[in-house]
């Protein structure tokens, strides 16, 4: 078997034991890697009802056949666990040298189970695993922890670590790596923290098994150069993702004031042009030439790495139009290891709830100083407010009452990314049916909706487009494990990816094989969800109610007077279910599961819930 190491490393923190477990071709071909491995392992090994922050939850780091191979842009790793934020399968990806080192150490995935008896750092070098004390950095942020690790092992090792947010089990704490990378929005950092696992360090010294390493090297390095040339030609990296802010503002899709408004006259103060002018350095992931991380000096003089989601949700959405202050909020999230998107939505919801009398407090939109204080409180679970904020917007809304859940900007518990879908029906659907909650990774169809359809349409073409993109973005890139940016931002051909896959594995897969695998993995996430929420209804696939509220319509601008319509959204949702082969709760039917080779998993699900 080429392309896979064929091994998974299982580490038990309670017993301080580890073992190398092998898998065969059947498992490899069915689940491929990354998200596929993670969802299957968690489905088989973490029982429904398990406390996500208890020792029986498992933390997974998983790679795919092209991860760590020199090719565009393969320096990514999937991190996954049962989510403490959403209560079912959660995951994310981040740029890290773990992608290369774990594979070179001889593993395609790492499973961490149990709970350590003291703050611990795992050090993995090939067949050796050490359980080292991390008391020295427990209580410290991700930058200091990263430096401490580099001081011990050098800068070339693979690192996954957490900050105070993860230690204190903030439910949207992320895993961090390198200087600015973060992943695992639905609380993967909190799961590490619950296990007293401060960091994972990996060093591998063997070659990654490939069918034709010479051919892959020539193909991959050549293509890295080509991607770089396209980037230079188009100028994408001048602003990287941050150019999206101006676009969203133009088309009334920007989150402003907890998504109540869609545009703001001061948004230019934090846009991509200003960011590029303020740039002090640029960072990227391993095996990447696009380098999308733009750093600026924040108000305190620290380097803060920003992308669109950061300026959208910590800036516009909080009505903070001072780039250096937005930089501070972003720096604090990175230092504490909190998801910047959820943090932005949690703070905006808190300000909105105070505005609407659902709770009392002294936080107002635009107050950057108070926002800094609240981020610290949320990361450390300081006091009643800190604890409340650390639990995420859905739990906050349930604590506040007063119908505030309507404007808690989340789906299935995961906060919405920085796109205001008050009147963007297809993207609202993309958030609604994103399998782990409102993540923008799965599908993003705003330019398609505006350029190629009418914005008013709720037709099946939008549901079909969401599925097409889910298969690519949430599917193929997450199980091969590579960054989607060369394709989405520079138009790098999708057909390159089966080429890379086939070169390392000696298989002969087509894109259709990729889509079939993607559908299998999506169905597995849905089964995972169903087991935890057996009484689920299609309402779980609805975006926040405020987007349907006519009193929340813009008073002026391109979508004045318009909001989403419930009946039409429901018919769009039905188009999605029909095309997917899901029932009217949004769960794959038995026939769909059978077609995807999931009979055994379906039978297991039926012990907890009904399938149709």
């Amino acid at each position, binding site marked *: 078997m080429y392309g896979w190491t064929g091994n998974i490393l299982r580490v038990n923190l309670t017993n301080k034991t580890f073992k190398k477990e092998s898998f065969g071709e059947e498992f490899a071909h069915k689940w491929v890697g990354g998200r596929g491995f993670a969802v299957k392992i968690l489905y088989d090994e973490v029982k429904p009802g398990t406390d996500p922050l208890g020792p029986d939850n498992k933390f997974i780091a998983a790679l795919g056949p092209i991860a760590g191979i020199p090719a565009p842009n393969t320096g990514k790793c999937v991190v996954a666990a049962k989510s403490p934020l959403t209560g079912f399968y959660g995951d994310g990806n981040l740029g890290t040298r773990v992608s290369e080192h774990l594979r070179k150490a001889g593993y395609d995935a790492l499973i961490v189970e149990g709970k350590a008896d003291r703050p611990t750092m795992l050090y993995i070098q090939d067949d050796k695993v050490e359980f080292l004390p991390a008391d020295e950095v427990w209580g410290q942020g991700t930058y200091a922890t990263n430096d401490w690790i580099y001081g011990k092992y050098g800068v070339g090792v693979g690192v996954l670590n957490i900050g105070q947010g993860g230690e204190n089990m903030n439910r949207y704490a992320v895993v961090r790596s390198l200087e600015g990378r973060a992943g695992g929005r639905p609380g993967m950092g909190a799961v590490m923290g619950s296990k007293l696992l401060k960091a994972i360090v990996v060093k591998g010294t063997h070659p990654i098994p490939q069918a034709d390493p010479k051919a892959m090297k020539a193909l991959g390095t050549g293509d890295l150069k080509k991607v770089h040339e396209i980037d230079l030609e188009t*100028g994408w990296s001048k602003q990287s993702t941050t150019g999206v802010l*101006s*676009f969203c503002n133009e*088309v009334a899709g920007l989150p402003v004031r907890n998504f109540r408004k869609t545009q703001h006259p001061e948004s230019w103060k934090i846009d991509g042009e200003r960011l590029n002018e303020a740039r002090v350095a640029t960072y990227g992931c391993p095996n990447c030439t696009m380098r999308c991380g733009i750093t600026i000096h924040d108000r305190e003089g620290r380097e803060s790495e920003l992308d669109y989601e950061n300026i959208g949700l910590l800036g516009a959405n909080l009505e903070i139009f001072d780039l250096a202050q937005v930089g501070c909020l972003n720096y604090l999230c990175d230092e504490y290891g909190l998801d910047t998107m959820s943090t932005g939505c949690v703070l905006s919801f808190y300000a909105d709830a105070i505005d609407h009398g659902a709770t009392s407090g002294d936080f107002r939109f635009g107050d950057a100083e108070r926002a800094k204080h609240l981020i610290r409180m949320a990361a450390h679970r300081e006091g009643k407010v800190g604890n409340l904020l650390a639990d995420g917007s859905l739990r906050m809304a349930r604590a506040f009452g007063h119908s505030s859940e309507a404007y808690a900007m989340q789906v299935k518990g995961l906060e919405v990314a920085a796109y205001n879908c008050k009147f963007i029906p297809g993207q609202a659907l993309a958030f609604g049916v994103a399998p782990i909650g409102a993540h923008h990774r799965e599908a993003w169809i705003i*330019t398609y909706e505006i*350029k190629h359809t009418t914005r008013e349409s709720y037709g099946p073409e939008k549901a079909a487009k969401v599925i097409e993109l889910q298969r690519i973005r949430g599917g193929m890139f997450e199980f091969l494990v590579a960054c989607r940016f060369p394709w989405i931002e520079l138009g790098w051909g999708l057909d390159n990816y089966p080429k890379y896959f086939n070169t390392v594995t000696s298989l002969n897969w087509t894109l259709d094989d990729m889509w079939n695998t993607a559908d299998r993995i999506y169905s597995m996430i849905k089964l995972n969800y169903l087991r935890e929420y057996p009484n689920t209804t299609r309402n779980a696939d609805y975006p926040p109610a405020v987007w349907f509220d006519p009193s929340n319509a813009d008073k002026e601008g*391109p979508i004045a007077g318009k909001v989403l319509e419930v009946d039409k959204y429901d018919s769009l949702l039905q188009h999605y279910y029909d095309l997917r082969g899901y029932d009217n709760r949004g769960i794959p039917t038995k026939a769909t599961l059978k077609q995807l080779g999931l009979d055994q998993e379906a039978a297991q699900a039926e012990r907890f819930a009904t399938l149709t």
Partner: protein
Amino acid sequence: MKIKVKLIGPLIYEAGFSEKDIEVPAGTTADALLDLIAIPKQRPKIMTRNGKAVAPQELLQDGDKISVSPIYSGG
């Protein structure tokens, strides 16, 4: 007639400005505007007029705000 043009992302550096008012003759189409601001027509892009998509052959009107953006894909 006067048109306000807003460029987004890398187009700013290509055309040398981010936002300005320009005088165009009556009968100018969205597509023809691109020649006036030195944006190659073949470049993948999305154009909006007052926040709504505009087709290449549509006639511009006095006071329109036209934005020209690369095809972003949402990160």
